[in-house]
């Protein structure tokens, strides 16, 4: 059983560009959450998708947007990249609409903005 998979693993972008990160949840999971983890810090919640809709959102600007597809996979899009967007982006999936309290994480995408 494949766990949570994220792609790509590493990415380098130029300031002002746009980026799309992808996540496939663990089999049987329907809820996907995205987190940003700056170097040496704890992950910060960006937003969560359930039933193809954004259900919750953390304190992140509108430059951060996402999507969930019918197969429950998800994308995170960041527009007008800033140097401060450089971080590890983690995807977590959970089941039962998020009522299953155990979240499984992917290995993350390391985004570097230069």
């Amino acid at each position, binding site marked *: 059983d494949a766990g949570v998979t994220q792609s790509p693993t590493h990415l380098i972008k130029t300031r002002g560009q746009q980026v799309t990160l992808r996540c496939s949840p663990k089999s049987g999971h329907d809820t996907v959450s995205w987190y940003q983890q700056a170097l040496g810090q*704890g992950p*910060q919640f960006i937003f969560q998708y359930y039933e193809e809709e954004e*259900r919750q959102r953390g304190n992140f600007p509108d430059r951060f947007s996402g999507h969930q597809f019918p197969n429950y996979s998800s994308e995170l899009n960041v527009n007008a990249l800033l140097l401060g967007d450089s971080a590890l982006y983690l995807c977590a999936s959970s089941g039962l609409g998020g*009522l299953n309290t155990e*979240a499984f994480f992917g290995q*993350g995408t390391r985004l570097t903005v230069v």
Partner: protein
Amino acid sequence: AQTVTQSQPEMSVQEAETVTLSCTYDTSESDYYLFWYKQPPSRQMILVIRQEAYKQQNATENRFSVNFQKAAKSFSLKISDSQLGDAAMYFCAILGGTSYGKLTFGQGTILTVHP
């Protein structure tokens, strides 16, 4: 809203010894869950142990156990018989009962295990 505080940026332990990592939290919810996650250099966040707030009994998972003090809003992790593979960043996290999977993490504690 929830907050989680880990006051120990770094800890070290000798192999086979015991170490305790500290965590305090705050929440307005009466129903919540607490977690310890391990993040090795591979970056993948791995669940170590989970505690339901309504349970008075402290959770244990093999060499890992917690000391959950609900009134004090404290949730420490004890690692017994430390192994080299325990070296990692450890995060304390809370999930509110109405949060539907939204975790709030602490700042993390880097654990070094000396042979």
